[in-house]
């Protein structure tokens, strides 16, 4: 088998990535604009030997993938804003119980049922803080189908490596448009498989006793070990505890295992940053318009560059600071009211020179929209 060239929707690129990564359990409830993911997996997953379940709602979907992951499966669900809201409680459970899982949110306009058939990037902060309590999370995004494929595989690898939920924040524009996707041969992209304990049956297994590198080997639930899993603060046995040392140790572990690795987890692309006077920071579909502007204006001698973020959480603040250091101005291009712009302002040395180019009316931001703002910043008038 060689590389397969396909002409597909972004949602299908996500499906291809998930299957490549070894997805073998999907539970979900279809919702626009993510429906094609469930639709395609309902056919493809059983053919690949996996299980597909359409659940009664998104709460149950999230609960089902948590359970399946504990029994040793690579799991995913897919949804959009309203469903992602319903998943927040169980998402926090997966953070606390350290259960590898991938949640794809193909974003549409919100709040509430909002504008189902139009794109948005309004769930960036929900991905970060949608579930309650201090915690860390990983969220990835992509602007084209090859990267949707690659980031989906990354999501599974990170989920397994760090025993954490990973959120894929795609959007309607990339989800529904069609373009080329090259699916590499199996084995070309490295996969992270479940780290299972070497402790034999009949011997005490401590589900929450980290190894020296911080990783926690798992035992398939229902197999040879009996152990407890809870959303309460818990000790190395998985039993509830309110001992301050246990509570402090666990919250630090949950946050540090991700935030100490912010640079390691950062995925990003640089476009013409070397001599850029104006650096645009963008991600997901909006980065396509930003890149169009960069290429187009470079032809006319304007020194523009683009930093395209693929890891949104943990926010790669050191990288943003470094790449923007020599810019006269930074323009964040996104389809919301400045959710990533606020993070960029916190990261750079000159927050007063960070601007927002956005659209929040359901219309995909055009290169002309961005150029008008650039002209204002450059003092050229609109």
């Amino acid at each position, binding site marked *: 088998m060689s590389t397969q*060239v396909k002409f597909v929707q972004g949602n299908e690129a996500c499906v291809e990535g998930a299957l490549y990564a070894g997805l073998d359990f999907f539970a979900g409830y279809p919702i626009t604009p993510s429906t094609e993911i469930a639709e395609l997996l309902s056919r493809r997953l059983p053919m690949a030997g996996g299980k597909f379940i359409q659940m009664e709602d998104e709460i149950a979907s999230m609960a089902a993938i948590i359970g399946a992951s504990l029994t040793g499966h690579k799991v995913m669900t897919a949804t959009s804003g309203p469903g992602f809201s319903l998943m927040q409680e169980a998402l926090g459970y997966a953070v606390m119980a350290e259960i590898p899982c991938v949640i794809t949110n193909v974003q549409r306009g919100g709040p509430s049922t909002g504008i189902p058939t139009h794109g948005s990037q309004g769930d960036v902060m929900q991905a970060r803080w949608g579930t309650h309590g201090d915690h860390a999370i990983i969220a990835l995004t992509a602007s084209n189908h090859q990267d949707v494929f690659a980031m989906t595989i990354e999501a599974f690898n990170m989920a397994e490596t760090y025993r954490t939920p990973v959120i894929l924040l795609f959007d309607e524009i990339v989800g529904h*448009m*069609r373009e080329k996707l090259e699916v590499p041969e199996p084995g070309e992209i490295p996969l992270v498989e479940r780290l299972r304990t070497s402790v034999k049956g009949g011997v005490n297994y401590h589900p929450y006793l980290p190894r020296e590198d911080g990783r926690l080997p798992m035992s398939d639930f229902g197999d040879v070990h009996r152990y407890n899993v809870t959303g309460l603060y818990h000790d190395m046995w998985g039993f509830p505890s309110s001992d301050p040392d246990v509570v402090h140790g666990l919250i630090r572990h949950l946050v540090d295992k991700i935030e100490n690795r912010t640079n390691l987890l950062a995925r990003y692309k640089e476009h013409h940053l070397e001599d850029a006077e104006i650096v645009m920071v963008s991600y997901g579909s909006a980065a396509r*318009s930003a890149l169009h502007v960069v290429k187009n204006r470079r032809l006319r001698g304007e020194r523009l560059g683009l930093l395209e973020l693929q890891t949104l959480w943990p926010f790669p603040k050191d990288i943003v600071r470094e790449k923007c250091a020599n810019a006269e101005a930074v323009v964040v291009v996104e389809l919301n009211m400045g959710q990533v712009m606020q993070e960029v302002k916190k990261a750079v040395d000159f927050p007063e020179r960070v601007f927002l180019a956005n659209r929040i009316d359901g219309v995909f931001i055009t290169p002309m929209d961005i150029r008008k703002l650039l002209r204002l910043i450059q003092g050229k008038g609109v």
Partner: protein
Amino acid sequence: MERMRMVFTGSGGQGVITAAIIFAEAAVIYEGLNATQSQAYGAAARGGSTRSDIIISEEEINFPKVIQPNMLVCLTQESYTSYAPIIRPGGLLLTDSRFVKQERKVDAWQVELPMYQTVMDEIGKPIVFNICMLGAVVALTDLVQPASIMTVLRKRIPSGFVDMNQKALDLGIALGAPQKR
């Protein structure tokens, strides 16, 4: 090649979006080009106004929507009225002479072809109207080989329908070819 920006418009059920997908897929998989296809996505189905944007290029395509098409296809009067003004000066405007009466001149190469009538006279089934339109587009643009379109179609449709689609494509090519500049 110059970047080709195309917009196919019509009414839901005429198959303009399917035609757009087939055309772009043929360009990517069998002609080695890059292409993006996107569509206005809404709750409307049959009878509503539909639009699909295609960009074809040897280069990477970033912004996937079409603001000013080099080629515009309108299969209803309503879509013609809405979209004719956005055509790029000097672009190609293709309409079906049964459904669209071209009323005003825009700065474009205007082609009116009896695609629907030909399909009804020669095949008798409106279902392949969109494939006939694709044939005309293939003949007028020279971007994609007819054989590439047929290869995509064979993957998508039951084998019993291949001949009818081939005939519709050939009819469209026969209508479009004499108009080519």
